[in-house]
């Protein structure tokens, strides 16, 4: 037979344990929400569209005819796949304007000043990036 004091002590320990577990779970939930928010902001389609369009435009501006440049765009291509965009249609170049499109109702364009003929080719070997073939503009 346990005494009344022993039972009270056991109940108190049980309460402390439950409170601590709830406290830790709430903290974890809170931190998880924060991390999910940060990741979603960092890998947002709009941010990646702008980043890659400007990156490609600068890359082509600095390129010389005869160059072939490979650009790793794995994150962007994964997002495009999720959004139902064909991987080969993510990057388009019309005249001297680069457009990166990762969403149906989206896309970001940026121009380059190098008067060259630049063609984007999807890397079908790795499915992770693009090749940019830079030739003289005839």
């Amino acid at each position, binding site marked *: 037979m346990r005494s009344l004091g022993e039972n009270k002590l056991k109940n108190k320990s049980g309460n402390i344990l439950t409170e601590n577990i709830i406290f830790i779970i709430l903290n974890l939930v*809170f931190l998880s929400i924060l991390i999910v928010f940060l990741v979603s*902001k960092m890998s947002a389609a709009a941010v990646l569209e702008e980043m890659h369009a400007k990156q490609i435009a600068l890359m082509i501006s600095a390129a010389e005819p005869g160059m072939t440049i490979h650009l790793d765009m794995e994150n962007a291509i994964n997002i495009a796949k999720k959004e139902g965009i064909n991987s080969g249609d993510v990057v388009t170049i019309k005249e001297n304007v680069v457009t990166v499109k990762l969403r149906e109702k989206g896309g970001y364009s940026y121009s380059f000043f190098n008067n060259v003929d630049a063609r984007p080719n999807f890397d079908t070997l790795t499915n992770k990036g693009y090749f940019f073939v830079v030739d003289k503009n005839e």
Partner: protein
Amino acid sequence: MNKKGGKLISVYWFAILFIVAGGIVYMVSAFYGKPYDVRLAEADILTSKIARCVSEAGYLKEGVLTEDFKNNFMESCAINFQAEDVYNWREQGQYYVEIEFLDFNTKQKISQISEGNQGLKPDCGLEGKGFPVCVDRKFYSIDKDGNQYQIKILSIVRKTEKNVQ
């Protein structure tokens, strides 16, 4: 007494967590909400391209000081200043370049080439969000006959709407 104290600490703990999280959310939103400003890199690349076009391995390229080169500068250096057709950019002109060829010893101007929107030049040196980015570089060059030159290149890129908020 202890139990009350524990709950009180938890409330403060969550209050602090919410304040910290609010700060992080605000900073992240402010950072990712702003566009990447690539104009300085763009102006630097433009300057390098022009430098490579007029000079090679320290020597001034042949025909650079001729009227023909001056008149066909954009074609000769493979430059196209046509920007995308947004914010009235095409009509306005988003670039300007100015190249000065000076005698290295006397600093007298021998030739000058300028292309693009001249209206951007007065905004150089002004501080503020809406102004273009200017890159001013100069370098030494020599021709086949041993004449020495100082070449000054001023490159200006506007494109404010897509680079600054």
